[in-house]
């Protein structure tokens, strides 16, 4: 038995810890709900914690592991939310089983967002650094703006699209308008539950961890560390960048589907630059490249503002300070020197060294 437990390597142990953490949190929440010890406020937050965590973990794949800053992550969530909601609204009468309907909606949302991810990835990933960041921002805004004026209707002939208004859809009698421009899409069946959210979070986490620990993951991280060196050892940069980018987009689409099935009305204006930045704050606070950190940060930063109501005016201000302070703490030469001087490991070494000296003297 002993030799078997030793075989579990570091990454596997980390996965077990994270999955265990999520499951324990889930069980604790369920017990609290069952015994009536959880406030309504918190119960309403449970699903949103799940989709923010999924968003943070998936963005971490692009920012932390691929090393490219994406400022349009909310755009992919938007696509997932809209396609998933449209599918569920169209099939709410024909597919009665909630589980099958939600699963299909999730798949469709993920595929749609993933396809956009591939298309945008092909365009965007030729660029690097700041240009890439600004173009992902541009794509996010384009998606938001186009969906803001898009009208979609549904009748016996199928789907109708218009960029003007509901009348120009030319629907037959009895047809329904699904998406009403800036008013968005409402009346999506509320199929998302906390259990579904946790399962999706686990799946997302395992997909990304599996990717990171695979040959492809190592290639992606090699590109992050030095793209010229990676290319010169024969890594196909474009292929791996698009792989990481589209997986990240598809998972953001999943989060979007979860979002649209949890909330009464989905409006594209909610998926702006601000949401992308909020998710980025989760990733930066949790540690770029650290998936568990992203989940913890997403949960904490969703919970805290609700408990610290008196701080709600300062919420975005605190996010801004977090971004600046984290970056300065990590990279400023003065902070790095300070950290090296006072890090617990070094202090401990010093302490034990001093003890050793003392014991020798005795």
């Amino acid at each position, binding site marked *: 038995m002993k030799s078997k437990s030793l075989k579990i390597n570091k990454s596997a142990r980390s996965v077990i810890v994270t999955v265990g953490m999520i499951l324990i949190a889930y069980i604790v929440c369920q017990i609290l709900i069952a015994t009536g010890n959880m406030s309504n406020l918190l119960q309403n937050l449970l699903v949103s914690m799940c989709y923010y965590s999924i968003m943070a973990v998936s963005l971490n794949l692009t*920012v932390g592991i691929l*090393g490219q*800053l994406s*400022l349009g992550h909310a755009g992919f969530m938007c696509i997932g939310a809209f396609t998933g909601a449209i599918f569920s609204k169209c099939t709410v009468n024909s597919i009665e089983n909630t589980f099958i309907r939600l699963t299909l909606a999730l798949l469709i949302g993920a595929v749609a967002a993933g396809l956009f991810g591939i298309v945008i990835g092909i*365009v965007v990933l*030729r*660029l690097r*650094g*700041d*240009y890439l*960041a*600004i*173009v992902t*921002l*541009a*794509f996010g*805004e*384009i998606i938001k*703006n*186009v969906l*803001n*004026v898009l009208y979609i209707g549904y009748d016996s002939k199928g789907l109708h699209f218009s*960029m003007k208004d509901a009348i120009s859809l030319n629907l037959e009698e009895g047809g329904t308008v699904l998406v009403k421009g800036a008013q968005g899409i409402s009346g999506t069946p509320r199929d998302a539950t906390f259990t579904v959210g946790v399962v999706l979070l686990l799946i997302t986490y395992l997909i990304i961890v599996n990717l990171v620990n695979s040959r492809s993951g190592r290639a992606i991280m090699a590109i992050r560390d030095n793209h*010229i060196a990676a290319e010169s050892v024969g890594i196909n940069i474009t292929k791996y960048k698009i792989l990481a980018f589209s997986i990240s987009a598809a998972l953001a689409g999943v989060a979007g589907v979860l979002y649209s099935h949890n909330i009464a009305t989905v409006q594209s204006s909610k998926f702006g*630059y601000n949401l992308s*930045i909020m998710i*980025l704050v989760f990733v*930066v606070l949790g540690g*770029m490249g650290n998936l568990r950190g992203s989940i913890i940060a997403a949960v904490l930063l969703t919970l805290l503002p609700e408990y610290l109501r008196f701080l709600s*005016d*300062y919420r*975005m*201000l605190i*996010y*801004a*300070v*977090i*971004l*600046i302070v984290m*970056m*300065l703490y*990590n*990279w*400023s*030469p*003065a*902070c790095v020197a300070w950290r090296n001087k006072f890090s617990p490991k070094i202090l401990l070494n010093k302490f034990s060294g001093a003890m050793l000296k003392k014991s020798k003297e005795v």
Partner: protein
Amino acid sequence: MNFLTHLLNGISLGSIYSIIALGYTMVYGIAKMLNFAHGDVIMVGGFIIFTMMSTLGLNPFLSVLIAMILCTLLGVTIERIAYKPLRKAPSLAVLITAIGVSYLLQNLALLIYGAEAKSFTSVIPIKALTLLDGRLSISGETLVTIPICIIIMTVLNTFVRKSKTGRGMIAVSEDKEAAVLMGVNVNKTIAITFAIGSAIAAIGSALMFSAYSKLSPTSGAMPGIKAFVAAVFGGIGSIPGAMIGGILLGVIEILSRAYISTQLGDAIVFLILIIVLLVKPTGILGKKIQEKV
């Protein structure tokens, strides 16, 4: 005549974009960083002018001058506190810090002035000019904005090419290490660049808010991003490029709002950015820089 009015409005908006784009293009050329907070410095400039004029009742010219001084201080302070320690950090870290600074300024303004849009009194005392029996009307703001843009551009271009400090800027932008060996003080040069960029931003904010009259904590962000698009369009790092890019972008934006779709104006601007970056990533007047291994 309609088309001419739109065209003039476009050139006027474009001139504002090019003034803002100067700050981006100079900082990007010299410090190799995208100063996301530049758009918010413009917003701060707007609020300073607003406070000076509405609350303290100062003369418009004095207000703009004070805004220029305060924005310069703000720009230099931001650079000193947030960007200077990160000179050797990866560009991702610098970009995230810049986004943080942008958010910080927006939310500070939100706490002080509230989310509601303030109506900004125009600082320009010139009345609108009516031509061709009233069929063509040019606003006072347009009449002033275009010449001011040309003057700033010329002065700045001369400064960069002729003065010792300006040549130091070019040296730093071309090769930082070599510039240090030639005795250029890199930190000072970057600080001066931020100072100039922020002072010009204050002029830009006076012109922009005079023309559009609505001022809120978020009203700097979108013009800021569009001005960056303009800088990329014209070729980042090039001062005449910022002017050409800005004016082209302004004209395209106004014409597409007028003839294609009002709501999709922003989307079209961003689409142009994407096309430019794909077809000619260096912009209209940009130089190609080979990456060193």
